[in-house]
């Protein structure tokens, strides 16, 4: 039995590795980035401010994470007491316990959210206390809703299927991820981008068709993202990125980057990665909660939440590696589409001054927190492109 199990694990591991290799493949060339000196690219004062601001941000992240783990750890031990506050049956009680766990985390993290806004204000950046508190509260309502749905699925399956609930649960969650990815773009709204000619030209180059570009007004940082599947594919630009000091040339680079995500099927690839993590993740969850009676029992929920958050933290470095890889491919795609490495460099330099992002953060920050290549790496890529044979 042990041999057979080992063989099964080996086969599954091999399948996983092959799938991961297939997902990892990209249009990126085998490149070697030139080493640039950040002091030559950014003013010394800006570098100092960005490094200081980022270090404060890192401290907040560490505090937030520690508090989250602490609260959930304590909750995993004592949370079962709240079972008496429910008349909802096992699944409903599980939902309540799950929501209460996240409610406690929210309350414990609130000071960090407020301090974060205070810190941003100190550096002359935007940020709303209302958004960080009441807005956060509303976001918690969304979390509760998704959590309840997830727990209803997991607990329902666990009560029906038993210990192997994770086998049907993982496909259900993958299906839900596809559904959300498909539906989300239509829920976000936004105003049409005012330069359809640029979009049309980039679409031709990137081999994507009819991707609406929308501008979202609710954010105070320059950013953009691409989302959607098939007919719902959209690019969203956050308002600050279409306003000065960003120029139309830099916006074109941003658009090309986002269209690059769509052209290289990054949304589908992300779902693929999610699927690869979903099976072992749910299996581990099933394994960890067995001592509390399994996921069909409300008493296991506080522990399950702790385990889930811990597993997410553990897999963060790997997820960041994948995300950085996809972002690098989108950057490369933008360079090839625009043939404008200067715009790319200027864009990344502006990011540093506008968001005070550290161009070259410490290694542990890079491993745990950076889901994009660092600004310095991105500028190095523009230099590589400019000097390589790819450049016209």
């Amino acid at each position, binding site marked *: 039995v042990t041999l057979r199990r080992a063989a099964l694990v080996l086969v599954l591991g091999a399948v996983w590795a092959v799938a991961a290799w297939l997902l990892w493949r990209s249009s990126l060339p085998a490149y070697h980035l030139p080493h640039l000196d950040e002091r030559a690219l950014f003013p010394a004062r800006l570098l100092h401010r960005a490094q200081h601001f980022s270090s404060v941000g890192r401290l907040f992240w560490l505090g937030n994470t520690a508090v989250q783990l602490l609260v959930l750890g304590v909750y995993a031990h004592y949370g079962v007491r709240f079972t008496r506050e429910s*008349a*909802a049956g096992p699944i409903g009680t599980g*939902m309540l316990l799950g929501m209460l766990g996240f409610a406690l985390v929210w309350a414990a993290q609130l000071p960090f959210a407020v301090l974060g806004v205070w810190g941003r204000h100190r550096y002359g950046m935007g940020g709303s206390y209302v958004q960080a508190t009441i807005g956060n509260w509303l976001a918690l309502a969304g979390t509760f*809703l998704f959590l309840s749905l997830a727990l209803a699925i997991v607990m329902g399956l666990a009560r029906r299927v038993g210990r192997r609930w994770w086998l049907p649960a993982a496909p259900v969650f993958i299906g839900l991820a596809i559904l959300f990815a498909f539906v989300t773009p239509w829920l976000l709204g936004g105003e049409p981008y005012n330069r359809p000619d640029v979009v049309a030209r980039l679409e031709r180059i990137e081999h994507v068709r009819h991707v609406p570009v929308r501008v979202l007004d609710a954010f105070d940082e320059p950013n953009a993202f691409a989302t959607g599947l098939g007919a719902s594919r959209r690019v969203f630009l956050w308002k600050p990125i279409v306003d000065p000091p960003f120029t139309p040339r830099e916006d074109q680079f941003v658009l090309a980057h986002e269209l690059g995500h769509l052209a290289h099927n990054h949304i589908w690839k992300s779902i693929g990665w999610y699927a690869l993590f979903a099976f072992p993740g749910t299996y581990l969850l099933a394994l960890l909660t067995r001592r509390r009676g399994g996921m069909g029992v409300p008493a296991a929920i506080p522990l399950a939440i702790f385990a889930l958050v811990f597993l997410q933290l553990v897999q963060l470095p790997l997820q960041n590696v994948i995300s950085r890889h996809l972002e690098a491919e989108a950057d490369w795609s933008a360079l090839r589409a625009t043939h404008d490495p200067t715009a790319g460099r200027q864009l990344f330099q502006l990011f540093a001054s506008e968001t005070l992002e550290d161009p070259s953060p410490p290694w542990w920050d890079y491993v745990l927190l950076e889901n994009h290549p660092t600004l310095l790496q991105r500028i190095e890529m523009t230099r590589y492109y400019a000097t390589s044979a790819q450049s016209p």
Partner: protein
Amino acid sequence: MAMEAHEHPVRLIVEDDLRRNRWTVFFRLLLVIPHAIWFFLWTILIIVTAIANWVISLFTGRPPGGLHRFMCGYIRYQAHLTAYISLTGNPYPGFVGEEGEYPVDVALPAEPQQQRRWTILIRILLAIPALLVSAALAGSTGGSYSSGKGGKTRGGNGGGALLVVCAVLGWFASLARGRMPKGLRDAAAYSIGYSAQVTAYVLLVTDRYPNSDPTQMLAGVERPSRHPVRVVGDPYDLRRSRLTVFFRLLLTVPHIVWLLLWAIVAILASIAQWFVTLFRGTPAAGLHGFLTRYVRYRLHVYAYLLLVANPFPGFTGTEGTYPLDLEVDGPKRQNRWKTGFRIILAIPALLVSAALGGALFAAAVLTWFYGLVNGSAPWGLRNLSAYALRYDAQLFAYELLLTDAYPHASPLEGEDAPPE
């Protein structure tokens, strides 16, 4: 606890026989003009004397006897006048707030009581929660009718008050039938009684906090007959978890979404039920069961959201699973006329329900704060909320054809008919 509530020094006395004179009903607002002027003057005098009373009481710990009696007369007069205007009482009231002379009266302490000085000092602040509930029930704690245009003593909540709705509906009903509907009369009397308790508290007649429990307020009033839709629950189920109270709104989000989804199906089912009931005269049993579950689930969710009950409810509306539960009689033959015009017939009840919704909301907000501090719900507010939820459930049951019995506005629970 119940005994304590019995001993509230401000008690409502209702000896009204529900009969109304159509002529005086029709001209009620005109007839009240002399009283309105008189009440306005009296209110100005009360404001001045109340300040003097407050200062003296701060030093002596008890109001002077003369001022106490003056305040009592004002409170009684206010109750009589409000009862007359709102058709809670029929005879024309006297002008001095005579004790025991009006069918809707208020019994007050004969002599001034020793009171804690610190509560006297901050009495107005302490009264704010009660004033909010009173505003939702009676529109103000007094004086809103006589001096409305002047605005100085008006303290209402803008016409959503239960008393105002009862008065308007009662006016039409009394004109048509020569009788005030008992449900509306009881609801209006309850509002008047609570308002009198609040005024007595503010004017230092007593330092007992107003009690919004409907059963205690209408202790001497005959209970209505048993309704086919009943809310059952322990009125002393007051423990509340502080953590779930704090996050109550968010914790209810999954239920609200589920309730909305369920509502879509329930609306379709009720349309089907309407046709069935119209043609057969009796609702289909399957649909009746489904709609009963929906109404019960709705009650559970609202009870949880509005802090009338403590535990997180289930998602199925199963009977007997929640501390505040709904009992609904099985499908019975219904009057086809009532079925055909159900939506139109429900309009008056919708108005009452909306007015009670204001009180329910005020009670929920106050219970939230109270629950966070004390880990429990105030008994009076809990029972006021249960009353509002019961009416809402009866209304929904009526709209969804679970019964053709009209929602009963009386705050009192119905009782079984005595055995023959």
